[in-house]
């Protein structure tokens, strides 16, 4: 039996002050806001990785994050990524110590790209994900899609494809690409943008933003050349869990980790 590298389905938890916001409605879940319990549920349901995105704005909330990461990592035996607000190599080190396998950096990498190498040299390139929030420029080719910082609020003047290339050359292990145009629409990933970035780099690209149906995942793996796709709120909208999604993908001929 010839083995094939499977396409990864990554479950994302948005966390504020230690609580999951817009959590998934698992039946019989004791605490829908507990990141540790939700992460364990997603892993048991077949998620290939877990991403915890801290959207806490306050400084006090930041110290809660490490406790949250530690508790979530405790019984999680699939790769675990933590992102949101990591600004320095020391902050990254604290998150690794708490149990993260990878960290995701965004605005801080744009402000000082040497941070990518600084973290990578200590923890390995595989542990550094550069997250890119990008928006298409109306009327311009997809390669002109612009990078935004500060949670999508601040235009940077950088082009997503070029920034992805630079992140790779500085030692990023993966790119997490969020289409700001598609995000929240449930109308499908931006396959054209994903393909443009994925083909520009050697490292894996995780597609994010726009998932609404299993078909959208098939499209982003085929047409978007994505290596992985992030599913945040899709499980609210008719797909029971990651396993159900993977079963549909397998019927579509997409290699996925099943049984899982």
């Amino acid at each position, binding site marked *: *039996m*010839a*083995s*094939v*590298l*499977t*396409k*990864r389905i990554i479950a994302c938890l948005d966390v504020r002050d230690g609580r999951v916001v817009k959590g998934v409605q698992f039946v019989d879940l004791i605490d829908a806001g507990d990141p540790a319990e939700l992460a364990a549920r997603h*892993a048991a349901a077949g998620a*290939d990785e877990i991403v915890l995105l801290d959207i806490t704005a306050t400084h006090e909330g930041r110290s809660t994050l490490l406790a949250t990461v530690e508790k979530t*990592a*405790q*019984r999680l*035996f*699939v*790769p*675990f990524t933590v992102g949101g607000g990591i600004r320095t190599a020391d902050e990254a080190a604290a998150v*690794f*110590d*708490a*149990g993260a*396998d990878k960290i995701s950096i965004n605005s801080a990498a744009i402000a000082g790209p040497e941070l990518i190498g600084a973290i990578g040299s200590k*923890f*390995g*390139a*595989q*542990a550094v994900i550069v997250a890119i929030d990008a928006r298409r420029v109306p009327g311009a080719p997809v390669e002109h899609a612009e990078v935004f910082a500060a949670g999508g609020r601040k235009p940077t003047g950088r082009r997503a494809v070029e920034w992805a290339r630079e992140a790779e050359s500085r030692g990023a*292990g*993966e790119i997490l690409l969020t289409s700001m145009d598609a995000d929240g629409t449930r109308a499908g990933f931006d396959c054209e943008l994903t393909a443009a970035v994925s083909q520009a780099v*050697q*490292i*894996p690209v995780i597609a994010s933003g726009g998932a609404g149906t299993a078909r959208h995942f098939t499209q982003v793996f085929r047409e978007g050349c994505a*290596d*992985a796709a992030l599913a945040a709120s899709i499980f609210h909208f008719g797909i029971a869990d990651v396993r159900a999604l993977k079963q549909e993908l397998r019927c579509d001929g997409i290699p996925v*980790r099943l049984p*899982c």
Partner: protein
Amino acid sequence: MIAVIDYRAGNLTSVVKALRHLGADVTVTEDPATIASAGRIILPGVGHFAATRRLDETGITAAVRDAIRRGIPFLGICVGMQWLFTGSAEAPGQPGLGSFPGQCARFPEGSGKIPHVGWNSLTLRPESRLLAVVPEGSFAYFTHSYRAPVLSATVAVTNYGGPFSAAVEQNNVFGVQFHPEKSGETGLRVLRNFLEWLPC
């Protein structure tokens, strides 16, 4: 006591956590004397092959070589497995332990994306002790740019631009290219098999 060798190459938290979850008495150490007194030894690694130079400089290589000779079970993970070969193209001047013949090489161009990151399946040799009870075709989580050749000690093969050793074992020396601490139930089974294996 299980010694997990710390050679300043990456994050050991996940390996230690998985071992403790399985009830193991774990000591993270870079002290050759502690390693020499361990009942089992694990060499993790997510870094560059060149980082294994530190093993030579600190006397750990000698302590491991002696422990293996005494029959102490040894498990190398990722770069820790590659170190069991004679060396790697990633750091040509840096020798490995040489328990297994052959050099590790970079995935050839055209293999797909490099590094090989994600879940890929295992084609198993049925007599494996490390992979006992693991079903054929089980998935494991990989992240690496260099790969070890397939040889007679190979007990699991994975394909990515060609076959490579996903697991090797010979007597009391074991190695896995994938990350058992991040490979769900399959990975925990592999770690449990290592912890429970008794030399006869």
